């Protein structure tokens, strides 16, 4: 929506995230450069969602730090499965939630804000859905709606958790176009993905995660067969009698 934007990157400094005593993300260091478009891939239980939630400030690091370079205006696309899709709310009201960072709890939305929300609905192909209850939408339409909310939010960093899961091919293609636009506008995008062909085609950078960062860099270098195999082995190595980690914090 706006042309040039302030660069916003995220640096991970020896980051460890845990669920109880079990490490979900283990001593990861690296950088999501300002304006980068990064895919996070890895086997199930590799800590991808936990990492994304930590980047959004929803999960406190057990060790290490998450450092923001530039602004920390973050837009999060939660997993579709985590949403109560029967919630009694109209589509336009969901899109208007994207105005929260500007309006907060009390300020009134202007006619211009409303128009922006309508335009965002149109941009994701949901014109005319303003008064429709969310419960009447298909999975793909709901994902389109959540993208419209991100459009309105106009954040510098976009964190997408499995954005193309459970949606039809056309929706995935439409939403991918939005992701490309965001990248073109200089926003920093981090997306958790499973479709490796898609990653190879569309994402310049990749983080292969399996608790530890197996590889992090240009997709061609990171997404090798060897690294993918290594990630799978790491995820399957689940030792109940593992000793406490003594790597320097």
């Amino acid at each position: 929506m706006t042309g040039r934007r302030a660069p916003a990157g995220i640096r991970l400094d020896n980051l460890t995230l845990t669920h109880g005593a079990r490490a979900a993300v283990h001593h990861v260091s690296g950088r999501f450069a300002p304006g980068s478009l990064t895919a996070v891939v890895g086997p199930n239980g590799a800590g991808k969602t936990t990492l994304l939630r930590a980047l959004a400030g929803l999960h406190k690091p057990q060790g290490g730090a998450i450092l923001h370079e530039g602004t920390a205006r973050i837009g999060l696309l939660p997993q579709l499965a985590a949403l109560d899709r029967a919630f009694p709310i109209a589509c336009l009201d969901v899109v208007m939630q994207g105005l929260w960072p500007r309006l907060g709890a009390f300020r009134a939305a202007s006619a211009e804000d409303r128009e922006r929300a309508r335009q965002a609905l149109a941009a994701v192909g949901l014109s005319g859905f303003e008064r429709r209850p969310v419960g009447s939408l298909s999975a793909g339409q709901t994902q389109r709606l959540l993208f419209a909310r991100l459009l309105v939010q106009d954040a510098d960093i976009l964190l997408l958790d499995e954005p193309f899961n459970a949606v039809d091919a056309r929706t995935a293609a439409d939403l991918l176009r939005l992701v490309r636009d965001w990248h073109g506008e200089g926003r920093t995008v981090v997306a958790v993905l499973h479709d490796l062909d898609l990653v190879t085609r569309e994402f310049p950078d990749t983080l292969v995660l399996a608790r530890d960062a197996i590889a992090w860099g240009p997709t061609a270098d990171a997404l090798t067969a060897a690294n993918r195999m290594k990630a799978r082995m790491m995820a399957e190595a689940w030792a109940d009698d593992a000793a406490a980690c003594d790597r320097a914090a």
Partner: protein
Amino acid sequence: MHDLLIAPFAEFGFLRRALVGCLALSVSAPVLGVFLVLRRMSLTADVLAHGALPGVAIAFLLAGFSAPFLWFGGLVAGLVVAVGAGALSRATGGREDATLAALYLLALGAGVAIISVGGGGGADITHILFGSVLGVDDPALLLMAGVATLTLLVLAFAWRPLVLECFDPSFAAAAGARGGAWHLVFQALVVLNVISAFQALGTLMAVGLMMLPAIAARHWARQVSGMAYAAVGIAVASSVAGLVLSYHADVPTGPAIVLIAGGAWAVSVLAGPVDGLLSRLLRRRHLAG
């Protein structure tokens, strides 16, 4: 008609007081109930009310039916159970609903035992558990009206964050909404509404006016605001009809109002336009376009 509906209130001051108090609560409590239902926390208010019983019982033994003491005792005990259950389940890794169930059964048993051991008779227990129209004295009325006013004011200001936090807490937190703080304010309001309903409805039934209209409202509206209006409407009607029933049939107020509200819920499930059973049966034909 006049004899049935108007005369009891015209004749007896205590009924008028109970009516005003219940109407005040009918405007605030069901709206909180709607949010509890949407958060899948329908049992929480129940647990708060039951958990408050030991505190109410101890206060009753120390000071009799003195309103401020009963509230204070109930408030302390209810908060201990609510906060304690959350902390305990986090510390032991158990499920919160199981911990809540354990604590509130314990609290209910302890409450009744305390009243009995302390020499309270069956009448006292009935009064505390199920409420009495005679219980709505001046302080009780002031509390109910005050709590209702406060609740409506806070809801008016906190509506947007409450809906956002309810619908998508992850997005809310990432976008910088302090969901936790709003949730605490909300829980405090729930406790206040439950406590203020004690005198009229009793500790066991206080939650009825909060939850039953809210659960029924789902069948009348497709948006949160519409559900709130529907819930308030059902609660107001249940309060009036419940007090009339209580008077004519000589039933304690709490159960009478809960019975009427329960009837309204049954009607909503059957005949409500949103997901009602009848509308499902009748809507065999579908739209052409």
